[in-house]
C-alpha cells in the first residue's frame, strides 16, 4: 500500500513537473490589433505593427535595455496574434471575440480608431480580457464609464488640444480669430471641441470664424480651403490625420492658406518629413505626445529610435512609440504581478491590478496611469514649429508642457475641466 502511495505521489510529482515545464514553454499569446489595410495603415497601423514586431522579437531575445531585459513577459516568450483593424466597428467586435474565445489570447494590445475603442471596451469587460488601447484618442472611454480590464497607456486627445492652445498662448498671444478643419467623427469632434473651449479660456473674446467638419477620407477640400481663406483666421486648427492630412497640405499649400494663417497640425509629425516641400516654416506641429522629434534624449529613446530606423529605414512615428510603450507597460505590470505570485503565471485580474496607477518609462518618457481610476495614462507633451534647414525638415521653438497642465483631475470630464478654466470643481 505504501509502495502504491509512493508511486502515486511520484507520478503526481512527475506530472506536475512535466506540466510546469510545458507551461513554462508555452508562449504568452498577445493579440495585436492595428490597421494593416485601409487609409490608416500607412501612417499609423504599419508603423505600430513594425514596433510590435521589434518589441516581441527583441523581448523574446532578451535584447531590450533594462528594466525590460527579462525574456518575453517574466521569462515566458511572447507570441503575437496579429489582426487587421480595418472594417466596421461590428467587424472589430467580432474579431475581438474571436481573438479572446477562439485564439485564446492572454491579453490584447491594440486599436487606433476612437470608434473601435469605444465599442471594444465594454466587450473586453464582458469577456474579462485584459485590453490595452495603445493609440486611440477620445477621452470619453474612461470619462463616461469605468473598467476593470481595460487600459489606455497613451494620452487622450484632450492633451493634444490643450497643449496646442497653450503653445499658441506662449507663441502667438495676440491672435484674435481662429478656424478649424476636422473630420466629422469622434476624434475630430472631440479634438475640435476641446481646442475651441481651451482657446476661449486662454484668449477671452477670441472669435471662431468657421468650423469645417468634412466627412472622414473626403480627400477633396477645395471648398473648405476657400472658406478658411475667406474667414480671415489667424490660426487654423486641424486634427486631420493620414491621407486627409496629406491631401489638405497638398491642396492648401499652393493656395497660400498655410502662409496666410498659421496652421496647427496636431498630428502633423506623421506628414512633416514626407511633405517637407509643401509645409511652410512656422507651421505648428504636434506628435500626440513627446514622441518622434519631441522624444526625450534618453538611453531608452536612443535605443528604440535607432533600432527601429535600422530595421525599417525610417524613424519611428508616434504610433510606433505608443505601441512600444504599451507593450513595455504591460510587461512591467505582468512581471510585477508574477513576482507577487511567487513566479507563477499571473491572471488577467492580477496584471490589471498591477497596471493600475503604475508609472514607468517608455521611449517617449514617463507614463503615469493617473486618470480613469488608474486606467488612463498621462504624459507631458510638446509642440514646435517647422523649419527647413539645408533641405531637412526640423522643429524649432519647441515648448514642453507637463501632464498636470494638460489633463483634468481624475474623475472630472475634460470638457468640464476646460470650461471651468482648467480648474477642478
Amino acid at each position, binding site marked *: 500500500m505504501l509502495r502504491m502511495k509512493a508511486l502515486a505521489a511520484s507520478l503526481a510529482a512527475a506530472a506536475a513537473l512535466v506540466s510546469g515545464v510545458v507551461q513554462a514553454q508555452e508562449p504568452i499569446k498577445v493579440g495585436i490589433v492595428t490597421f494593416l489595410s*485601409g*487609409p490608416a495603415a500607412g501612417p499609423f497601423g504599419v508603423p505600430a505593427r513594425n514596433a510590435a514586431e521589434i518589441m516581441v522579437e527583441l523581448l523574446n531575445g532578451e535584447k531590450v535595455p533594462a528594466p525590460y531585459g527579462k525574456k518575453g513577459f517574466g521569462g515566458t516568450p511572447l507570441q503575437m496574434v496579429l489582426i487587421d483593424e480595418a472594417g466596421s466597428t461590428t467587424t472589430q467586435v467580432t474579431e475581438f471575440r474571436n481573438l479572446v474565445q477562439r485564439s485564446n489570447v492572454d491579453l490584447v494590445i491594440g486599436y487606433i480608431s476612437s470608434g473601435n475603442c469605444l465599442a471594444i471596451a465594454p466587450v473586453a469587460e464582458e469577456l474579462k480580457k485584459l485590453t490595452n488601447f495603445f493609440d486611440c484618442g477620445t477621452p470619453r472611454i474612461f470619462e463616461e464609464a469605468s473598467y476593470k480590464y481595460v487600459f489606455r497607456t497613451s494620452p487622450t486627445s484632450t492633451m493634444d488640444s490643450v497643449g496646442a492652445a497653450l503653445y499658441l498662448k506662449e507663441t502667438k498671444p495676440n491672435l484674435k480669430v481662429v478656424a478649424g478643419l476636422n473630420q466629422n467623427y469622434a476624434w475630430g469632434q472631440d479634438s475640435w471641441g476641446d481646442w475651441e473651449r481651451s482657446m476661449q479660456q486662454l484668449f477671452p473674446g477670441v472669435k471662431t470664424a468657421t*468650423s469645417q467638419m468634412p*466627412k472622414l477620407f473626403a480627400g*477633396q477640400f477645395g471648398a*473648405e480651403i476657400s472658406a478658411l481663406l475667406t474667414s480671415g483666421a489667424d490660426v487654423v486648427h486641424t486634427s486631420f490625420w493620414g491621407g486627409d492630412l496629406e491631401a489638405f497640405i*497638398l491642396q492648401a499649400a*499652393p493656395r497660400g492658406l498655410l502662409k496666410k494663417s498659421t496652421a496647427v497640425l496636431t498630428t502633423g509629425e506623421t506628414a512633416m518629413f514626407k511633405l517637407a516641400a509643401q509645409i511652410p516654416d512656422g507651421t505648428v506641429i504636434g506628435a500626440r505626445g513627446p514622441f518622434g522629434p519631441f522624444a526625450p534624449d534618453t538611453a531608452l529613446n536612443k535605443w528604440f529610435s535607432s533600432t527601429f530606423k535600422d530595421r525599417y529605414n525610417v524613424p519611428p512615428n508616434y504610433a510606433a512609440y505608443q505601441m512600444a510603450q504599451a507593450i513595455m507597460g504591460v510587461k512591467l505590470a505582468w512581471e510585477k504581478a508574477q513576482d507577487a505570485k511567487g513566479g507563477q503565471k499571473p491572471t488577467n485580474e492580477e496584471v490589471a491590478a498591477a497596471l493600475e496607477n503604475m508609472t514607468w518609462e517608455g521611449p517617449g518618457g514617463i507614463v503615469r496611469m493617473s486618470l480613469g481610476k488608474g486606467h488612463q495614462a498621462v504624459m507631458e507633451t510638446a509642440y514646435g514649429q517647422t523649419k527647413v534647414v539645408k533641405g531637412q525638415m526640423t522643429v524649432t521653438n519647441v515648448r514642453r508642457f507637463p501632464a498636470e497642465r494638460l489633463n483634468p483631475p481624475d474623475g472630472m470630464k475634460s470638457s468640464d475641466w476646460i470650461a471651468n478654466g482648467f480648474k477642478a470643481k
Partner: protein
Amino acid sequence: MQLVAVLMDGIIYSSWLFLAAVGLTLIYGVMKIVNVTHGSFYALGAYAAASLAGAWIAKGYPPMLSYAVLVGAALLVTVVAAPLLERGLLRFMYAKDEVVIMLATYALFLVLEDVIKLIWGVDPYFIAEPYGMMGSFEVGGLTYPTYNLVIVGAALAAAAGIAWVLQKTRVGRLLITVIHDPEVSRAMGVNVDRFFLVTFTCGSALAALAGALTAPTVSVVPGLGVDIIVLSFAVVVIGGLGSLPGAALGAVIVGTVRSVSVHYAPQFELFIIYAVMAAVLAFRPRGLFSAPEARKI
C-alpha cells in the same frame, strides 16, 4: 468674395465629380451593370499615375510631359485590366439578374483592393509636381491652382466626346440600338459582345482617368476607391442611372449644394448630398433624367 468662391468651388468640384462618375453611368446605360469596380479603376488610375509620373519626374525627364504620363498611366492600366475583367468574368454573367452582376463586381472590387495593396503596399504615394507646375490664378481675391482648370477641361471634353460619339457617329448610333434592345441588335447583326467590351473598357478608362488626374491633389492611399464609388453612385442616381445629361446635372447639383453648405452651413455638409439624393428620389424614383421604361410582355 464669398459668392465668387462658392461658384468657383462648385464648378471645380462638379467637374471632378462628373469625371469620376460619368463612366459609371455609361456602363450602366449600355450594359445595365451597376459596376462597383468603378472605384477600383479610379484607384488603379491614381496609383499607376502616381507611380509612373513620380518615376518620370525622379528620372529628370521634362516635367511638363508628366501630364501626358498621368493620362498614359490611366489608359495603360485600363487596357490591361478592363478587358481581362469583362472577358474573363463579367461576360459569363450577363444572363444573370442585375443584382447578381452587381454583387460580382463588388466581389471583384474587394479582390482588386487587395491586388492594389499587393502591388503598391499601404504607404502613401505623392505626385504633387503637376498640381503646382502650371502656376495659379486669382478669382475674387482667392488663389486657385491652374491645374483645377485641367479638371474642368477634362470633364467638359469627356461630356462633349461621349455626346459626339453617341449622336454623330455610326458607332454611337449602333450603341444606342444596343442600349435600347441588345437582343434585337444582335438579331440585326450588331456585335453586341464587342460593344459591351468596348463600353466597359471606355467606362473604366474614364474612372482611371479621373483617378490619375486626382492623384496630384491627394495622397494616394489604400481605400481611395471606396468613397468615390459612393459619391459617384449618388451623382448618377440623382441624374438617373444611364443618363449622360443626368450625370452632368447630378454632378452640378451635388457640387453646388456642397459648396454652398461648406461656405454657409458647414455643419450640414456631411448630410446635404444624401439629403438632396433622398429628396430627388422621393419625387423622381428613377432620377431626374430617366426615360419612362416600356413594359415588356
